[in-house]
């Protein structure tokens, strides 16, 4: 999907997801970043309003400031531009598990109404899946430990399902009390950013509720692309439209990184 609104501004799905995610990050945040759009959003945020954003990647790079988009979670660029690089026990036990990360940034193949996410398999069984996916990586413990988790995912009926085939990483389980039951000390998902808008957990039920639509996106479009009976916030907002300067930045970043 590519949207055209106002004068000559157009953007792609990835672009508005990335820019929307970037804007959420604060200059003082400590952010645990996965590869792909989360990483692009974090790097974009650092180049704009959040130069001090403290980025950690599971490969061990601490306070890294990549000038190009990394190809993998352990890209040389991430190591070269880091304040320091440490072993993975330190990353997972001292940085993540201790609860000192503000924002965890995750992608997913499937998500359900309680923001549980699946990156393990789609269809049939764990033992004999229809499609086997990469698995957990760092996600399970990122989802458990960060003060908040931001999930970035394209909103489609295939991805937004009533029940995920496999809970790789818990969001809110089956609602209030689930995270406590499993001793997850982080706050859980605070926002799900899609190509259509933003969903947030309802403060009472913790069910994902549409709170923002991107410019030009209709409620019907969102309902069509969600596999459960989606609720909308009573105070729905329209996401801020990407600014030319943001689109220019992101395109430059991607161009510079082409290898």
């Amino acid at each position, binding site marked *: 999907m590519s949207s055209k609104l106002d004068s000559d501004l157009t953007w792609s799905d990835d672009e508005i997801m990335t820019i929307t995610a970037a804007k959420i990050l604060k200059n003082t945040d400590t952010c645990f970043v996965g590869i792909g759009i989360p990483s692009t959003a974090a790097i974009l945020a650092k180049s704009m309003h959040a130069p001090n954003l403290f980025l950690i990647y599971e490969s061990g790079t601490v306070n890294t400031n990549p000038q190009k988009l990394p190809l993998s979670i352990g890209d040389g660029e991430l190591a070269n531009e880091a304040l320091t690089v440490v*072993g993975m026990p330190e990353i997972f*036990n001292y940085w993540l598990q201790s609860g000192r990360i503000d924002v965890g940034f995750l992608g997913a193949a499937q998500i359900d109404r309680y923001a549980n996410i699946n990156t393990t398999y789609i269809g049939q069984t764990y033992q004999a899946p229809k499609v086997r996916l990469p698995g957990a*990586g760092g996600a*399970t*413990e990122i989802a458990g430990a960060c003060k908040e988790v931001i999930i970035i995912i394209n909103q489609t009926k295939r991805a937004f399902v009533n029940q995920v085939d496999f809970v790789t*990483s818990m969001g809110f389980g089956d609602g209030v009390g689930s995270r406590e039951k499993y001793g997850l000390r982080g706050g859980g998902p605070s926002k799900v950013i899609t190509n259509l808008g933003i969903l947030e957990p309802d403060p009472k039920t913790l069910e994902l509720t549409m709170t923002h639509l991107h410019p030009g996106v209709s409620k019907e479009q969102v309902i069509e692309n969600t596999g459960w009976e989606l609720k909308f916030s009573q105070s729905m907002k329209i996401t801020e439209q990407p600014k030319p300067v943001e689109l220019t930045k992101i395109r430059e970043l991607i161009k510079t990184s082409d290898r």
Partner: protein
Amino acid sequence: MVKFADLSSAINEFVKDGETIAMEGFTHLIPFAAGHEIIRQKIKDLTAIRLTPDLIYDQMIGAGCIKKLIFSWGGNPGVGSLHRFRDAYQNSWPQKLEIEEHTHAGLTNKYVAGASGLPFTVMRGYRGSDLFDQTSGVVEINSPFSDEVLTAVSAINPDVTVLHAQQADKAGNVMLWGITGVAREAVFAAKKVLVTVEEVVEEFTPKFNSIIIPNIQIDVISLAPRGAWPSYASGYYERDNSAYIAWDKIAKERDTFLTWLDDVIHKESNAKGPKS
């Protein structure tokens, strides 16, 4: 005590059918040259541990070296799927592949327990994930000091750990720098250690983020310049992303894979990639 040997003799002496092997290097310093030599020597029935199987285990799985895979993230980083892994797991080609799946934090802590000479270690993890019930060696444990329930993960102690590193000195000490992942723990946890290196130097010079593995922890060192290609060796060469993309096509079909196996591995033609 460590010795220096060519890679073929080193693999022949220190990697045996049916053993548990850990070939680590988190996106960086992946020991591809050693993996290819294992394929060439047709070593079989390995239980192979790696956080990210990556291309190296996709190749070894396709070649029939691996019976069981212990891992925590099984994709082609930045590209997509590991087709040989999928074909083995879903279709048992070229043979059945057992898996034991973990999280990065969990597998990291299993190495930590192994390195520490403990039967297990304690962490916060797995709970709330369906993985908790699907994997093994992961159970709940009560804190004796609070009413918290935590996760205990059992230790792993590979028969042999294989690493690629930037440098060895003449005494057989090894230095790695940049991203070192779980290299330190994989060495301490192992019964035998085989290291391939880019270079043997007179003396190490200080680097940021370096670790040194003393020679008494290493059994054999083999010189293998570009031995981490197509991954990278900080200070020596960069990741060859085109090879990661090309692998997607090669591995997608069994016949293109078999051709690769014949042409690239068994004929030893281009195994280490284009010279930089």
